[in-house]
């Protein structure tokens, strides 16, 4: 029964996704949206990919990473090199961007994921800065003045990447591996004692999260006409972090909702960057003091629809506790 329901849910989501795609495509090709809205829409999708990929690392595995912009930068530059310097097709470049970021994730993850909590946060922050400074000093990719990139991102690519990201991360979360990751988040020592190879799962989650951040980087690079190291500073990492924190550590739909909301907010506050940052930071502080679990806690949006049935069936424990 549950299996059929799940299957139904899967097809329902696919149909919904297609509907969203078609609506988006009609709105764009019918020239109903002006370029500002189209840009915001693309940016929203890229932000959702970033939010969901960081959600896997922070929300599911409980590893506090604040250098996500570093992976974004690796993906952006790797894919830009492939399209601009090596004349490869966009799809290949995106994949390469993702893979490059995943490799970077492995390189940084294997040593630093032995660290816990604050130390890991600082190590990832340091990694993000190293990437930025590296890009700043390498002339091949333009150094401080940045790199020219042609505009290749379109709605089909953005949407396909978004869909793949969400499907992969949802399935990962619901798989054995995902449960292992959640157990690490809840209590790493207990997970270790239960025979879970915590290092392996932490690194795996980190690499997958980095991979999708790299894909987002590819889309991001080809959406603008130029990429510069300053686009990938600490503030960018912070932007991504706030999606996950605001949405609720451990809730993917929360991360998606937060990404959508904040992209809209920041699109309209574009001319007032200070105001935007002040609002962001206040939201963050007030949120942590009064509602530290974020908008959705660890709940997913689908749980609001299935809750009733669960209650009748005697309450399948949702098995979710506080994140981290």
């Amino acid at each position, binding site marked *: 029964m549950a299996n059929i329901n799940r299957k139904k849910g899967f097809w329902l989501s696919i149909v919904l996704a297609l509907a969203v795609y078609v609506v988006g495509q009609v709105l764009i090709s019918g020239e109903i949206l002006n370029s500002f809205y189209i840009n915001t829409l693309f940016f929203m999708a890229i932000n959702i990919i970033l939010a969901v990929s960081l959600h896997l690392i922070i929300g599911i595995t409980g590893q506090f990473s604040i250098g996500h912009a570093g992976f974004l930068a690796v993906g952006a530059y790797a894919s830009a090199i492939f399209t601009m310097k090596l004349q490869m097709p966009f799809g290949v470049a995106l994949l390469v961007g993702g893979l490059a970021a995943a490799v970077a994730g492995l390189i940084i993850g294997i040593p630093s994921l032995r660290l816990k909590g604050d130390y890991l946060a600082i190590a990832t922050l340091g990694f993000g800065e190293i990437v930025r*400074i590296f890009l700043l000093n390498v002339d091949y990719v333009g150094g401080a003045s940045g790199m020219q990139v042609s505009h290749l991102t379109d709605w089909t690519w953005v949407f396909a990447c978004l869909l793949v990201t969400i499907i992969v991360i949802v399935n990962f979360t619901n798989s054995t591996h995902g449960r292992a990751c959640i157990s690490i988040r809840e209590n790493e020592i207990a997970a270790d004692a239960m025979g879970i190879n915590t290092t392996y799962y932490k690194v795996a989650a980190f690499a997958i999260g980095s991979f999708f951040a790299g894909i987002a980087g590819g889309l991001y690079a080809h959406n603008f006409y130029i990429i510069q190291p300053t686009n990938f500073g600490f503030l960018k990492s912070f932007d991504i972090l706030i999606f996950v924190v605001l949405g609720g550590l451990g809730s993917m739909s929360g991360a998606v909702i937060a990404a959508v909301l904040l992209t809209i907010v920041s699109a309209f506050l574009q001319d007032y960057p200070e105001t935007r940052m002040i609002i962001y930071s206040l939201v963050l502080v007030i949120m942590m003091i009064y509602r530290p679990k974020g908008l959705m806690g660890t709940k997913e949006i689908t749980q609001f629809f299935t809750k009733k049935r669960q209650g009748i069936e005697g309450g399948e424990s949702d098995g979710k506790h506080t994140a981290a």
Partner: protein
Amino acid sequence: MEFVQQLINGISLGSIYALIALGYTMVYGIIKLINFAHGDVFMVGAFVGFYAITGLGMSFFPVLLLAMAVCSVFGVLIERIAYKPLRNATRIAALITAIGVSLFIEYGTIYVRGAQPEAYPGDVLPSTSFHIFGATISSQSLFILGTSVVLMVLLQFIVHKTKIGKAMRAVSYDAEAARLMGINVDNTISATFAIGSALAGAAGVIFGLYYIKIEPLMGIIPGLKAFVAAVLGGIGIIPGAMVGGLLLGVIESLVSAVGYSLWRDGVAFVVLILILIFRPSGLFGKNVREKV
């Protein structure tokens, strides 16, 4: 002697890092929180110093004291408003709050006074220079070094010889037991923030005098590097922060001396990652066995 010259520059820079790192390490030692806003307290100190010099025409020592006083009040305010409600929250919640506070201070400052940089007037300290071993030492860097050393000695005195210092050490060792012994833990934490922030404020003024240019986002990179210095020395250990700061300053200057001056910002983070991999408890740290 290029090498000696760079060594001297490195020690001046390192003493600034060390002053900031002390605040990080004290706060971390007592409430296990990376106070990201610490770098911004440093920035506030620099601006207080700037306005006191240009607006009120004060000389070096009154400016230093004023900046330290303002910053310590500021640090206590941050602690009371933002961190105290989170005393029992998760570490991540506290860390996120700290990042939020940091950004709020940075962009609040930009909102209030604009993002344009300011230049410290150069005539606050007497500027003569000495020549030793072929290297030039300006009297400014001697002043800076002297001030830092005095402040660090003062800190050692406070931590080891006064009642509040004893309370601080007790709370950082075991907050619950300290509370049972009748120590007012909240006041002790506030005092730690006050002392740490005062040092950061002093570092801000010194930084302004030495590097001239100050701006609202200047606290980020020195703040992060000072944190690296604190980790390098062993976080929570006061002499460790001093040594870590000086060492980091010297390393950075030597990297510049070898000709990689554009990479010097990255070196600190490479040092950080190396130290975290090979000796996560820092140079002065002891290995703590994990208890379940």
